[in-house]
């Protein structure tokens, strides 16, 4: 895969390396200082290995997006520590947002190049890497379009290219495919898993879909709502490389999905009872 090789060529050492490792200890996030502060995250302990694909699932309001934003440096924790070991990676992390977050005033090519432009990557090298990233997501023909001229799926692919082109040690993805139709979602999930298998980056993937978490990740972190805590961590036993379509139709997949759904169901019920009581 020529495109992937060009992407991974960012001052890379000769030996293949894995992405960033993360150590989260007793992480806590409280919003508001009034009489009723909202505890978004409480007592989060999580160790993410280099090159691991971790999915975080939970009901809405469980703080999973907050956790991702803190990892991305867009928010600050109230307590606890996060240690990220991304030695040798020029860019520690890159986030893919739920809505693509492409700048409407930049053409696709300029959007994809953004993270290289801000970091002063030389023009010739940037052009090469952008071309490779666009090829990887199949948008070379659309590089001179503005985002509003593309479909939602193409915009999301552009956003993924923008993240990949920076060659980050860790990809942070906040329900990146939630707004897509089912066909496009499967195609992009397949692409993402393929790219991950080839590049060995660490991926932290937030989703509200158990199925998606089991399909994509090595581990699934199940969170609870109000306050957001880790309820369960499930090792996903399916080997890589994965064929997502076949996997999603297998009996073992169905059984695991059901197990997790039971765990989550309790949580959803409890959260509902609390908010209504």
């Amino acid at each position, binding site marked *: 895969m020529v495109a992937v090789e060009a992407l991974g060529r960012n001052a890379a050492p000769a030996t293949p390396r894995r992405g960033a490792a993360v150590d989260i200890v007793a992480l806590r996030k409280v919003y508001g200082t009034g009489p009723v502060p909202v505890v978004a995250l409480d007592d989060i302990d999580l160790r993410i290995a280099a090159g691991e694909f971790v999915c975080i699932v939970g009901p809405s309001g469980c703080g999973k997006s907050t956790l991702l*934003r803190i990892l*991305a*440096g*867009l928010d600050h924790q109230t307590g606890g520590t996060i240690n990220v070991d991304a030695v040798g990676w020029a*860019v520690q*992390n*890159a*986030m893919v*947002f739920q*809505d693509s*977050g492409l*700048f*409407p*005033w*930049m053409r696709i090519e300029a959007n994809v190049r*953004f*993270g290289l*432009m*801000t*970091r002063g990557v030389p023009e010739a090298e940037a052009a090469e890497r952008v071309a490779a990233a666009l090829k990887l997501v199949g948008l070379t023909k659309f590089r001179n379009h*503005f*985002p*509003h*001229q593309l479909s939602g799926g193409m915009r999301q692919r552009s956003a993924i290219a*923008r993240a990949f082109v*920076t060659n980050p040690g860790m990809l942070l993805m906040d329900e990146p495919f939630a707004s897509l139709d089912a066909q496009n979602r499967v195609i992009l999930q397949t692409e993402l898993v393929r790219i991950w298998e080839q590049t060995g980056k660490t991926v932290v993937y937030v989703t509200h879909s158990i199925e998606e978490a089991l399909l994509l990740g090595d581990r699934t972190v199940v969170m609870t709502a109000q306050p957001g805590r880790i309820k369960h961590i499930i090792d996903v036993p399916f080997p890589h490389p994965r064929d997502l379509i076949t996997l999603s139709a297998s009996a073992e997949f169905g059984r695991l999905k059901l197990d997790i759904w039971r765990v989550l169901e309790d949580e959803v019920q409890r959260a509902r009872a609390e908010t209504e009581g």
Partner: protein
Amino acid sequence: MNELSAKARERLLYLISPIGLLLFWQLLLMLGLGDRRFIPAPTDIAVRFWALVASGELAEHVGVTLYRVFAGFFVGTIPAIVMGLLMAMFKPVRIFFDPLIAALFPIPKIALMPLLLLAFGFGDASKVALVAIAVFFPVIINTYVGAANIDRIYWDVAKNYGASQTVLFTRVVFFGALPMIFAGLRIALAVSFIVLVAAEFVASKNGIGYLIWNSWELLQVDTMFVGIVAVGILGLITSVLMQELERKVIPWKADG
């Protein structure tokens, strides 16, 4: 009803009101209702207009007025855009300038003319300064509102992707605010003609405002109307040019 004839009908309707008004006006005067010495007919104004064009007198006044509008426009809008963006990016800047804007915006800018004559003398500079001050406020307010309302996700993307303050300013906040900046520029353009013509009434020996006021004092009512029509035409042309510029500069909105 096919699309072309519908469009043609719309265009016709667009022209009916002004042409109808002119015809009605002409007809009343031709019927002897009204004194043509005080209220010239459209044809009288047209004749006078042509005479002033032929003598070069109109071009001279138009040139002076346009120079003052454009000079004042640039001097006033560029700092307004920069400061409006800085207000959105940095809270201390906003806190510093907010009360100043609130206090100075409602002052009728023409009331500053005597002060500006003292400061800059009777030449072009005082009129350019007046236009600059008058356009400053609508542009800074629009720029700030436009930049402050940029969707949070764009700030997040900029931060996560390593944007420096300079990149944030020039690549994100400026472009995000651009549609609102243009709304401010359109208002500013109209405001600049309004204050300038008023200033030229009292504080100038040339320009369209002077032409209007001088011909009023000489009771050359047809010349006065020529001046008024000239301001209207200039306003229309510059506003169309501004819209064209906006379409060029904001291509991501053009077919969205």
